[in-house]
């Protein structure tokens, strides 16, 4: 659990184990996957993604797919800044907003400027690079933590300015001029138009975003393989040594900033056209936290990780919207988590069985103590108008769960109390040493978790989502700082 500190000889001796890679089923899949040449891998994935719109007429799903592509691109950009160059840029979302607002000002009736799309996007790219350099130059003098706060402040100021710059006094105009539209934002933006073809619906924008994602992937990959990528990596690991080796760390840092900014800016422009408008609240800290969580979850410094993180974190909240689906996702995740994360597997199965048994035992006890205790949940399961098979199955599962958990009549207070007990207990359990006690304590705690889910967490999905993101970030850093697809970093003493 503690990050490994190796001696040099030890490190050298472990080389075979490191080169071996993961074994078992995962290892075989990974080996097969890596065997395919890169170009084919990319084309394959793109083909799969491109098939989506023809398969479904549901605009909602296509929109989700588009959002995933957009956020994946953003995560990739952030990955360059944080993962490759090691600069904690908490104002990243401001570049996103800058690009969006720039597009809005260049392609709307606001100032009656209507640039052709390609010109807008190119200009936005250049503008973002400029601002990236501007923001990056103070960073040269700042230590990592200070940089974080300064960039965070910059992000906040951006939102503030976009709200307040609708009443700007200029000396040559009698009345204040409205630049950003204030909190009303700017609407009725021009649609993107490439080579005479105007993008009008979600499907068009999805393809554009997909292409943009592919471009970003290619460019970043090539950059990573090149000298610049190597230079970035060495700068990330030990800036002093890198400088001593003659690398121009200043330029490298600025380049990283500018690059990330450019990706974010152009993505912002496309987003503005897609949404048809820009509003200050589109670029707040919520979005920043989401992008960071995507990068960290996927693995800082890993290309595939950023995309995977984006996919997971953009998709799961949509799942959480429908209570039945949310419930299925939660329990499936819980069950899978128990089975996959406990070793040996037998203990995992035993824990699962134990939790189910615990719940049933509790119900029995409740029936004995208070025979007229009617565990009728106040959550009614809507019977009518659900006809897709998937949803029906989810519904039956929900009914089964409701027979298993005890529901108090008033959900809120017991739920809150349980939550307050749960969090410290989970923290304590996480830091406990493995053993019989830990395995035994897991069972009531998991039941408590399910209880809290049913009573409080599923009732407030938006809060739950953020709560889980926060918890996930902490746990990831403690147990698996390299995320899902990143490489593990060790310190060689």
């Amino acid at each position: 659990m503690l990050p490994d500190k190796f001696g040099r000889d030890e490190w050298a001796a472990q080389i075979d184990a490191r080169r071996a890679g993961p074994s078992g089923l995962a290892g075989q899949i990974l080996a097969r996957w890596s065997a395919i040449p890169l170009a084919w891998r990319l084309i394959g994935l793109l083909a799969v993604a491109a098939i989506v719109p023809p398969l479904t007429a549901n605009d909602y799903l296509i929109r989700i797919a588009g959002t995933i592509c957009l956020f994946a691109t953003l995560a990739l950009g952030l990955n360059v800044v944080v993962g490759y160059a090691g600069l904690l840029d908490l104002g990243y979302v401001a570049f996103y907003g800058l690009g969006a607002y720039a597009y809005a000002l260049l392609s709307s009736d606001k100032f009656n400027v209507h640039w052709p799309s390609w010109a807008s996007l190119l200009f936005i790219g250049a503008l973002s690079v400029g601002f990236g350099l501007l923001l990056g130059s103070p960073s040269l003098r700042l230590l990592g933590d200070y940089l974080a706060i300064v960039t965070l402040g910059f992000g906040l100021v951006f939102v503030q300015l976009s709200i307040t710059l609708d009443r700007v006094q200029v000396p040559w105009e009698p009345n204040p001029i409205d630049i950003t539209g204030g909190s009303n934002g700017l609407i009725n933006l021009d649609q993107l138009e490439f080579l005479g073809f105007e993008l009008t619906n979600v499907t068009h924008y999805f393809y554009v975003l997909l292409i943009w994602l592919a471009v970003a992937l290619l460019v970043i990959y090539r950059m990573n393989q090149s000298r610049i990528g190597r230079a970035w990596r060495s700068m990330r690991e030990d800036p002093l040594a890198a400088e001593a080796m003659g690398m121009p760390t200043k330029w490298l840092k600025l380049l990283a900033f500018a690059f990330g900014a450019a990706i974010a800016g152009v993505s912002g422009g496309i987003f503005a056209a897609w949404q048809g408008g820009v509003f200050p609240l589109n670029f707040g800290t919520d979005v920043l936290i989401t992008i960071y969580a995507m990068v960290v979850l996927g693995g800082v410094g890993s290309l595939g990780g950023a995309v995977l993180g984006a996919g997971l974190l953009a998709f799961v909240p949509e799942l959480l919207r429908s209570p039945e689906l949310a419930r299925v996702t939660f329990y499936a995740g819980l069950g899978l988590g128990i089975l996959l994360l406990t070793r040996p597997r037998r203990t995992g199965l035993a824990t699962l069985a134990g939790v189910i048994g615990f719940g049933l035992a509790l119900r029995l006890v409740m029936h004995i103590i208070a025979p007229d205790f009617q565990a009728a949940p106040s959550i009614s399961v809507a019977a009518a108008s659900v006809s897709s098979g998937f949803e029906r199955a989810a519904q039956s599962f929900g009914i089964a769960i409701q027979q298993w958990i005890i529901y108090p009549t008033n959900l809120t207070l017991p739920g809150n109390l349980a939550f307050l007990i749960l969090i410290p207990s989970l923290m304590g359990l996480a830091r406990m040493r493995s053993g019989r006690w830990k395995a035994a304590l897991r069972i009531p705690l998991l039941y408590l978790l399910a209880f809290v889910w049913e009573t409080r967490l599923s009732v407030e999905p938006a809060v739950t989502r953020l709560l889980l993101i926060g918890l996930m970030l902490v746990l990831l850093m403690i147990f698996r700082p390299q995320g899902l697809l990143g490489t593990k970093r060790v310190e060689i003493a």
Partner: protein
Amino acid sequence: MLYLSKRLASPMSLLIVFGLILTACQPAAAPTTEAPSGPVEIKIAFFSPLTGGAAFLGTEQLAFARLAVEDFNKGMVPYHATLVEEDTDITPDKAVPVAERTAADETILGVVGPAGSGQVEATAEIFETAGLAHVSPSATRPSLATAGNKTFFRVVPNDDVQGPTDANYIADEIGAKNVYVLDDQESYGTNLADTVDKVLKQKGVTTTRASVTQADTDFSSLVTTIKGSGAELVFFAGQIPSQGALLAKQLKEQGVDIPVFGGDGFFSSKEYIDDAGGATEGSYASVFFQDIRGIAEAADVAKAADAAFPTWGNFGPPTYAATIVVLEAAVRAHKAGNLSRAGVLAEVAKTDVKILGVPFKFDQNGEVIGATFYISQVKDSKFVQVFP
């Protein structure tokens, strides 16, 4: 050949699995208009900020929407209404995917909401394409109705009415000659403050214009400035009653004995009057809906609301009205033999009902006819309507 098919095997299988998952997620088919022997199902969606910065508003709206559905189900037995509650926060980009989901679900016949003006703008096209009538209980930006949307309606008057009403009252009835105009940097507040500022200036009143944010905890420095400016009244176009109360408290603290004039958000007895400990005595709030506590027909609803959501103010009753408008329209559509989105839309446009003792009728833009703003003053720790 073999090598090629091996390479294509993985993406192919991925494709197949992916496709299967997608087809499983198809939304439900539309119901037929043939009513079986059971009650007629009417399903409508409800958009409001249940979480996030405006959650205080959204939860109140939700409580009243639920009340409306309950009352409807009790009173109209052959019909059964279901409310699909959606949390859209207050930002436009959060409303869009929800709107698309709703539009894709053919069983939903109408929408109450969205709550925010920016959200209405962002989702307008989606609702237009889907032919879904959406009745908002709180989106007051004037441009929404004139944008050419056939599916947008609102049960409350817009900011263009509130601004002049308030400014005229301040200039004529209260007679203030020097007013400090504040907004809270939210879209509702800035629009309203701008309009009030303009009208006051036209009437020859000296105004000073500034903004604060909803997260501001301290107004004492601002108060000192207000003191120095000689203002006789502070117009605060804010939405959070505790903020208005704070301003009033800090004004009194520094001995600046002038009233605060606020917007709809301030119309909450508990937070604006009780929690202020007397500092808001003599202050005003202008509201877009009549105080239903004074209306006989609304007494039951008011009582039920007190039990369900004790701190309700001004956002709940219009939501009740909006919900009933949609449900009543659905009933009329069914009676005309066309219980579908198009039918509901047509009937909403023809609405002419009295809800909570207040008549509702829409003009061709979706604006409610005959709506006016009401101004209340805090007298003896209670809101007393002073205008009209």
